[in-house]
C-alpha cells in the first residue's frame, strides 16, 4: 500500500477532515480552532471546508468546552473539543472525571458519551509549570474514559479516527514535541481498535516500554544499544486506558528484563503502576529488577535550559538499559 511522509499535525488534520466527511454529527469546538486553525495549527482549513456550524471558536471557558461536549454527546452529536493545553483539563476536571467518565456507569449503563477531548500536552518549548505537564498518569483511575497518547503520525491519524468513532469518551493527548515530527502514513489508514499496544521493534535482551514523546527516544536508544550488542524490543502502549497488558506481558515473559519510560514525573507515574502489575503477576519471569526512566519529581520551569533537566533523555535510557542488561540472572531457564 502506498504511503506519504507527513507531519503528526497534518495527520491529525486529515483524521478530522475524514471523520467530519464521514459523519455529519461530528463537530469541532475550542479556542482559536476556527479561522486561526488552532494554536498548534491542527485544525487549519477546517472551518473553510465545513463551515462555522461545524467548526467554531469558544470563549475562554474550559469548563463549558468539556461539559458542553459531554452534553452534546449525550444529545447524540459526536463532538471533538480542543483544550489549547492539556494543563487546562484541570479547570474541567469535574467534567472529565465526574461527568464524561462516570455518566454511563452512574446512570445504569443506558447512555453513551461519544466525546473526544483533544489536548496538547508535554514538556516542550519553555512554556512553564502551567503549560507543560504530561498528563496521562492522572487518568489511571478514570475507568470510564479512554486515554490515548499517539507517538507517530500514522498512529495520530488512525487513533484519532478510532477515537471519534468510539462510543466512549476519549481523552486524546497530543504531545507538543511531536507536532512537527514527520513519518509515513498509509493512504488508507487502518482504524485499529483502541487499546492495542504497538511493538515497534523486536529484541531479545530487554523490553523498553515507552509512551508518547519517549517512543522516538527509546527507538534511538535501541539502535545505539544494538551497536553495543544489546538487543532491545520497543513497545508503545499508545495510551493509558485501556492498557494492552497482553502484548506487554508477553514480551516481558520472553525477555525478562524491562525498562519503562515516559515524560511525566517518575513518582506515581505510568511506569510505577505498570511495573507493579508486572511484578505482581510475573515476578518469576523477571531476570532483573525493572527500571524506570521518567520525568523529574518537580515542576517544569519556564526556562528552557532548566526544562531539559526535567525531561528524560537518550543518555538516561542508555545508562539504565546497559545497567539492566548487565544485572540479574542470565536466563529464565
Amino acid at each position, binding site marked *: 500500500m502506498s504511503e506519504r511522509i507527513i507531519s503528526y499535525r497534518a495527520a491529525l488534520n486529515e483524521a478530522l477532515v475524514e471523520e467530519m466527511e464521514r459523519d455529519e454529527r461530528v463537530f469541532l469546538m475550542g479556542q482559536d480552532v476556527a479561522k486561526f486553525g488552532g*494554536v498548534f495549527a491542527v485544525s487549519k482549513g477546517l472551518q473553510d471546508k465545513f463551515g462555522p456550524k461545524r467548526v467554531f*471558536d469558544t*470563549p475562554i471557558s474550559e469548563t463549558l468546552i468539556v461539559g458542553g461536549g459531554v452534553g452534546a454527546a449525550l444529545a447524540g452529536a459526536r463532538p471533538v473539543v480542543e483544550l489549547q493545553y492539556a494543563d487546562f483539563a484541570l*479547570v474541567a476536571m469535574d467534567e472529565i472525571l465526574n461527568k464524561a467518565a462516570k455518566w454511563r456507569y452512574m446512570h445504569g449503563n443506558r447512555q453513551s458519551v461519544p466525546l473526544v477531548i483533544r489536548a496538547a500536552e508535554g514538556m516542550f518549548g519553555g512554556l512553564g509549570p502551567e503549560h507543560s505537564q504530561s498528563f496521562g498518569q492522572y487518568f489511571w483511575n478514570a475507568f470510564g474514559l479512554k486515554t490515548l497518547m499517539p507517538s507517530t503520525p500514522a498512529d495520530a491519524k488512525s487513533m484519532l479516527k478510532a477515537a471519534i468513532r468510539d462510543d466512549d469518551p476519549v481523552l486524546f493527548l497530543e504531545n507538543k514535541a511531536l507536532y512537527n515530527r514527520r513519518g509515513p502514513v498509509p493512504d488508507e489508514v487502518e482504524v485499529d481498535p483502541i487499546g492495542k499496544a504497538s511493538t515497534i521493534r523486536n529484541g531479545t535482551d530487554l523490553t523498553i516500554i515507552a509512551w508518547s514523546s519517549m517512543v522516538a527516544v527509546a527507538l534511538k536508544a535501541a539502535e545505539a544499544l544494538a551497536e553495543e550488542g544489546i538487543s532491545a524490543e520497543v513497545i508503545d502502549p499508545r495510551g493509558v486506558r485501556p492498557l494492552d497488558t497482553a502484548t506487554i506481558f508477553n514480551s516481558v515473559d520472553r525477555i525478562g528484563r524491562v525498562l519503562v519510560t515516559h515524560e511525566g514525573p517518575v513518582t506515581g507515574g505510568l511506569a510505577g503502576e505498570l511495573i507493579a502489575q508486572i511484578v505482581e503477576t510475573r515476578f518469576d519471569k523477571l531476570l532483573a529488577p525493572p527500571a524506570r526512566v521518567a520525568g523529574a519529581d518537580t515542576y517544569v520551569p519556564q526556562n*528552557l*535550559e*532548566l526544562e531539559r533537566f526535567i525531561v528524560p533523555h537518550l543518555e538516561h535510557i542508555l545508562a539504565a538499559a546497559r545497567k539492566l542488561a548487565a544485572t540479574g540472572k542470565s536466563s529464565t531457564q
Partner: protein
Amino acid sequence: MEMTVDQLLHAFRIMERSILAEQRLLRFIEAGDSRVLLHSGRGQEAIGIGACAALRDDDMLFYSHRGVAQILAKGILLDELIGDFLGRIGGATGGLGAGIVHAVDPKFGVMGSSGTLGGGFVLSAGAALGAAKLGDDRVSIHLFGEGSANRGTFHEAANAAALWKLPMIWLCENNGYSVSVPHREATCIEDVAQRAQAYDMPSAIVDGQDVEAVYGAVKEAVERARSGCGPTLIEAKTFRIRGHYEGDPQNYRSKDEIAAAKLKDPQILVQERLAARGVGEDRLEAIRQEERAHLEAAVATAMSHAKAGEAQIYQGLLAGDMS
C-alpha cells in the same frame, strides 16, 4: 481625574521603562539569548501604570500575562525582570521563570500571576478577603483581558466579592481579542463592565490609552474599597499593537486595524498631556536618557549573576527551601 505633573512625569518614566524593556527583551529573543514566549503589552501600558499610581506599595497586584508595564509600575526591579528573562539566579524567580509571568516582589505587593487564565479572579478576591479578615486596609487589584472574563471563576468571584464587600478592584484590559477571537465573537455584551450590574457592583468604563483616566477611575475604586464599600469593576478600552505572541501571523485582523492601533499609542497621549501642562521636551528627553542608562545598568546587573542550573529545579517546592 487629573494627575499632578510629578505623577504624570513618573507615569511617562515608567512607560518609557516598559517600552525600552520590551524592546530589549525582543532583541534577546531575536539574538537567541532568550527563548521564551513574550506577550507584548505595547499599546496597553497606560492601564497598569495609571492603576498603580493610585495604589499604595502594600496593595496587592495580581497581574496579567500582557506585557511588563503592570509589574514595573508596581515596583518590580528591572534587573530582576531581565535577569529572569535570561534565566539568571538574580532574576525575580531565581532564573526559573525566564519569562515575565511569574515575577513577584512581596515588598511592593506584586503577588504573581496565574498562567491558567481566570485563576486571578478567585485569588484576588481571596487576597481581599485575607486583608479584611486580618483587619488591615490593603486592597487587592487584578488586571485581566476581556477574554479571560469568560471563565466561570469570574462569576464565582464577582458574586462573593460583592456579597462580602471585599476590598478589591478588577481592571479589565479590553483589547478586543482573545488570541484570534474577537471580543464580540466570545460574548454578546459590548462592555464587560455591564456584568457588574448582575452582582450589584459599581463599574466604570475608561479610555485605556489615557493614563489619567485610568488613574482617576482606579483612585475612586480604591477609596471605595478601603472604606469598606466593596469591589469595583473597571473596563479600560485598549489596543494591542503587536501580535498576541511574538510570531503571531495576525491573519485575523487587517493591517489598517493595526495601523490605527498605533495611532492610539498611550505614549503619544502622555507626552501631549505633559506638553499641555507646560513640561518642555528637554525634561522628557532627560528622562528618556536616564531610562536608557537605567536599562543598560539593569542588563549589566542581570548578566553579572550566574545562570540557573540543575540545582534550581528542586528549589522552592516547600517553605523549608526559602532563603
